[in-house]
């Protein structure tokens, strides 16, 4: 395991920190990522209805297969278009 020395004044922690959780989803763009399990879309349709009901804007995405991580381009697209993401992992 190789390492480099930290060039900073070390006031911040090393690991990348999570963004703060938003206090409300109203007005936010929420991404729903379908991982392509059967009938996952049915579940997400219902989630979409409920999110729209509380004032969020919803964008839908699909990844090609549940067996591999989402392609880089898709991840980038989601990251630029949404502020919050929900990823369905249910069977």
């Amino acid at each position: 395991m190789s390492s480099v020395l930290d060039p900073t004044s070390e006031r911040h922690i090393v690991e990348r920190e999570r963004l703060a959780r938003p206090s409300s989803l109203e007005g936010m763009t929420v991404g729903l990522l379908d991982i392509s399990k059967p009938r996952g879309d049915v579940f997400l349709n219902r989630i979409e209805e409920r999110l729209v009901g509380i004032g969020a804007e919803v964008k839908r995405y699909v990844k090609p297969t549940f067996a591999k991580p989402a392609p880089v381009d898709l991840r980038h697209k989601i990251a630029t278009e949404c502020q919050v993401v929900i990823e369905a992992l249910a069977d």
Partner: protein
Amino acid sequence: MTDTEEITAPILPDGIVVIVKRECETCQTVVPVLEQLAGGVELHVYSQDDPEFPASPASIPDSDLAISWFHDIETVPTVIRVADGVEVERTVGWSRDAWESITRLDALGPDLPAMRPGCGSMSVDPDLVDELRVRFGRTSLASRRIEVAAAEDEMELMFNRGWTDGLPVVPPTEQRVMAMLEGTSRASTETVAVVPPDLAEVTVEKVAIAAVMAGCRPEYLPWVLTAVEAACTEEFNMHGLLATTMPVGPVIVCSGPGTRAIGMNSGGNALGQGNRANLTIGRALQLVVRNFGGGVPGDIDRATHGSPAKISFCFAEADDTSPYGRLAAEHGIEDGVDAITVFAGEAPQGFVDQLSRTPESLATSLAMRLRAVQHPKLIMMFDTVLVMGPEHARVFADAGWGRERIVEGIMAHLSQPGSELVRGANGVAEGVPEAWADAESLPKFRPCGLMLTYAGGGAGLFSQIVAGWVNGEKGSAPVTRAVSY
């Protein structure tokens, strides 16, 4: 991995200690002498490269080279007489007289020649030294280690963490930082300066990290350390330089014999690309300000446009051939002493005059050009560094004009009546306050505000103008320091 493991210097046992390596022919030659010594003294033989050497007398392996490193073994064989845990005397190589004297035995090595030189110790082998320095000096590095993940490209790691100036940096591994620290005799834990805007205390070690990242060689480190000290002074006002919307950055002017020793460029293209010392010294200062001080564009650094000179702007004056001395001399630095001046300045602007052959013409010509520094109607609030090319300097030198005379000659043509400069004059809103409208003659620069330096190639009737940021209370003053090694 225990980075805090104490590596203490091993103590030598009392008696006669001999350090050898099989690879050394002289060590092989003296094996019979070692056998003689084993019979007559308290003998301890350490072998650097092979625990089976010599076959007799039995040796103690110094496989990690701790004994050799901490006891400064440069040659094998080395013979040391130790009493009460302390070295009393030593000799290197084979010399019958020296060995008999140190061991107090007679008739050593009767079949050997009187003398035979030794070989290099493994602990000073250039291929091993960097690794040894890390192995035995590890505890002296205080900085946090950032692990490079197995699949991670370490160049990308540096970019991803925001530690570059947009160009790739050299990853600061322990080995590289330890090697860099050899460039100064100052302790790695010594505080160098308090760096704006975060106002944290930067140590020699942290500056060395920046120097590695910038691409410096160890011999550049004292220049970088001095530049950091100078740039972080109150009067230089590095915070102001960052927060301003003007495109300024720290400009480093170096002079003294040390600039030539480290290969800086004071000649052709001195302000341009290609010279490692010029570019990496300037870059290292900016990386300290960025990574350690927290001065980052888009954040504290509010420059409207910035400039390429903010990546690095550092050059050497050709003070050894200068017809009018060097800038540092104006600030009390004695002849022959290496020095730097940091100046809050912009990227260089050109000055063309290919026809003036008299000092009067050239001085007037320079004055015309300098009138426009920052704005023709703004005066006194900006200093300027003039980098005079040798062909221009010769015009003054041939007429016998020294440093003061040159500045005087330029300044004589750099005054304007207030009526020309005042806000609104000549249909231009910018200018000096109304209150100055009646002044008969206002100078462009404050006293000592126009500073001469000497650098550039031998061909070309050009000089360069480095316009300054705001001077005075709210601005920056140039700072000169002798380089501390």
